[in-house]
């Protein structure tokens, strides 16, 4: 004969509660690990090049004539008066200061127009040289690089001139 289960025991204990101690231990260890590996300030880098030294390729050995290929030679000069864009022997209009600050939007628009014209026509159509005055702040140079790198239209971003060289051609 099977025993009848005790009714009194069941009634006294009530519903069982989850043991949350292992979960709490796990979370307490996980939080410092994630906090250590989290980035609250995102650090990025901008690769830059120095302008090629004149005559560097012809150093040593006989000089062989190279086929002359037309290049864009795009450059943006940053001065205390604003921006000047030059490309393929052409000089675009000067972009003056706007409310005592550099007009990065206008620079971006002008370069975007130029990019659409020269796309695929020159071998150096992704390169740009930024020549700056000696006293121009570093922040202005970085913002100029941002304005030359990409053009934003709505949610789409178009790459313009991401290969930046720095030059101090302006004194």
């Amino acid at each position, binding site marked *: 004969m099977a025993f009848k289960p005790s009714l009194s025991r069941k009634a006294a204990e009530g519903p069982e509660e989850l043991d949350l101690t292992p979960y709490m231990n796990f979370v307490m260890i996980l939080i410092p690990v*994630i906090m250590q590996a989290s980035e609250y300030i995102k650090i990025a*880098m901008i*690769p830059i090049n*120095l302008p090629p030294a004149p005559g560097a390729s012809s150093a040593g050995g006989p000089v062989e004539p190279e086929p002359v290929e037309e290049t864009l030679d795009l450059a943006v000069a940053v001065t205390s008066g604003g921006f000047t864009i030059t490309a393929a022997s052409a000089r675009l209009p000067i972009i003056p200061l706007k409310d005592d600050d550099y007009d990065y939007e206008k620079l971006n628009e002008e370069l975007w127009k130029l990019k659409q014209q020269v796309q695929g026509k020159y071998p150096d159509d992704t390169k740009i040289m930024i020549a700056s005055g000696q006293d121009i702040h*570093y922040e202005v140079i970085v913002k100029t690089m*941002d304005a030359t790198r990409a053009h934003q239209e709505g949610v789409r971003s178009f790459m313009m001139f991401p290969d930046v060289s*720095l030059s101090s051609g302006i004194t």
Partner: protein
Amino acid sequence: MAFAPSKGKKHGAEGGSGRMELNMTSLIDMFTCLLAFLLKSFSAEGALVTPSSGLTLPNSSAGERAKPGLTIEIGQNGIVVEGVHMADNAAEFGKTDFQTLLKSPMYADLDRRHKAALAMEEYGSKFEGEVIIQGDKQIPFSALYKVMFICARNDYGKMRLIVISTAE
């Protein structure tokens, strides 16, 4: 006449044990929210480059992830190469002529590091010539350019400017 305290309420209802249990629900809710927030900003690689405390880096829309390399800090109050102070004033350093720069302590230090790195190539450590430049946003361009000149003269040609990314 004062009422007598209820005996039933104090001891009778909970079976007379007198033990209380912590309610963990709200604590677990908080931890779950915290975990979700931290996972959102989690980086599997960790921070490879740590910005210097005395510098205000410029903001940029660049999104390329920073890689470690020889670190040069250019602040308003001086230039530091891998933690070693090289010059006192960045603006004055920017005015130095190129011939004087070739005799500067910074040039000598980079030259020594370059030669040491080349000597290590025999043991399989390839010299990449990578340098990361952390500049304060207010320094003049001339200071940055002179630092770049010294780097280039010592074959540190792969230069990277460190910025605070505003890219999504």
